[in-house]
């Protein structure tokens, strides 16, 4: 069971951390490819992976259990600790 904490702040800003600035290029970065589990998303991501690897960019693959729900907290955390950016295949 993970901790639930009470927010000590004024709650004027979202509790989610803000999005990072988009990088200028991918050199030396680790790219996460997130499959949301919609049909043929994997086909699209396979192609992306092939092209990224051809440019010697490190790629990690992730998948949501279902496209109908937001990504689980732990999956989001894992991606944030292992990748510098993530590409999500949104639809079939």
């Amino acid at each position, binding site marked *: 069971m*993970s*901790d*639930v*904490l*009470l*927010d*000590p*702040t*004024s*709650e*004027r800003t979202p*509790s989610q*951390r803000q999005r990072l600035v988009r990088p200028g290029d991918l050199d030396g970065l680790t790219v996460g490819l997130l499959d949301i589990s919609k049909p043929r998303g994997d086909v699209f991501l396979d192609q992306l992976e092939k092209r990224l690897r051809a440019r010697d960019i490190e790629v990690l693959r992730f998948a949501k259990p279902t496209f109908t729900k937001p990504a689980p*907290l*732990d999956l*989001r*955390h*894992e991606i944030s*600790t292992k990748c510098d950016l993530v590409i999500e295949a949104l639809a079939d």
Partner: protein
Amino acid sequence: MERVGDGPVLPDGVAVVVKRDCPTCRMIEPVLAQLDTASDVTLTVFTQDDPTFPTGVGKVVHDDDLAVSYHHRIETVPTVMRVEDGIERERTVGWSRDQWEALSGARGLGPELVDMRPGCGSLSVDPTMADRLRVRFEAGRLRARRVQLAELEDGAEAMFDRGWSDGLPVVPPTEARVLRMLGGTDRAPDDVVAVVPPDLVECTVEKVAINAVLAGCKPEYLPVVLAAVEAACTDTFNTHGLLATTMPVGPVMIINGPIRHHIGMNDGVNVLGQGNRANSTIGRALQLVIRNVGGGRPGGVDRATQGNPGKLSFCFPENEERSPWEPLHVERGFAPTSSTVTLFPGEGPRGVVDQLSRDPESLARSLASCLRTVQHPKLPLAFDCILVVSPEHGRVFAEAGWTKAQLRERLHELTLLEGKDIVRGADGITEGVPEWAKDAQLPKFRPDGILIVHAGGGAGLFSTIIAGWVNGDTGSQPVTKEIGS
């Protein structure tokens, strides 16, 4: 007894709370059956552990989530209550034939039993259950946004990442800890304590409690933190200005009155230093409220050029018992028996060494020569100060019969500055007062600008000066608040 929150209402008649694990409850099992058959008694038995216990009673309710026990503050089993119109009118605990008979109106109860026998602790107050039950039944009262951490997230790191910390580790504010903290005050969680600068956010008792948990406070410190937040958020104290200034200042807290001892503060050896939980965490809690609720952060509204380590936490109690003088809060118009917090806009402390003076005039001159340097030796009137007199220095004045007022008056005389010495350019220093003041005599401090308190360990002929920020209506004034419950 009053019920906690919106718990279940007891049925009219006689209600008894028992658990099988309690030998007294097992002993009175036949009495319950006897009561159940009494014609004018409507009996309901609430059983905490075993739903098949007791036998021989018509209406047994399993209090499996302990809601009845918790909301009706059952501390002992058996507890017998007489209920009318859903309201408890009378209660007795343990076994006492006389009291059970008086309460129920039945006669001849348990003739074969001893006259009385104490009960056992209720499951609802079992130390392993208390926090869990408080969360189960009372967490709904807490309004703060819930922040769920990921399984793989390190709790301590997560709080740094979210910007909740002043740079030191903080204690995770879980529902259980915040509810326990709120137990330290009679005030309702949604009661608004103050509007906190710089963002001018309404701050509830609950938000103060959350930050007090972060800071490492115990529940009994909470009333002190609440009073400090109230004092800090007054126009007189001007926390916004104190935060925004480039000068190295922050709130300094002096605690007076009986609460110092009740919460175990240190007014002796190393009084201004580390090592005592109350001294260290109460000041920190105030700063965390200003940071987290008020939004006052270094580099944001906090523009201090250099700051000072006291901005993490600067809180100490006066040593009143060994003081030769009346304590600070009494001077400021409060009863000796009241507990207060006084906020002062101050720098870090610096020592005054005088190991040779044994007469009060010599020691006053020593102290005055150091007080003249507050902020700058050529700047008069703009800054107040706290003089923390140590016990050994205090004794020099006490033995000579000097009152605090006498010492203060002498310090004012001895810190009078000659205009010619402090005008711009004098002594080869550009800083100073304008030329028009060159023939004037200017006091270093305004009349109420020297606060004198007594604190510290028994050995050491040293005292301490805490210099103030800009005083008066344009700056900040010391504020004293009584500490409530």
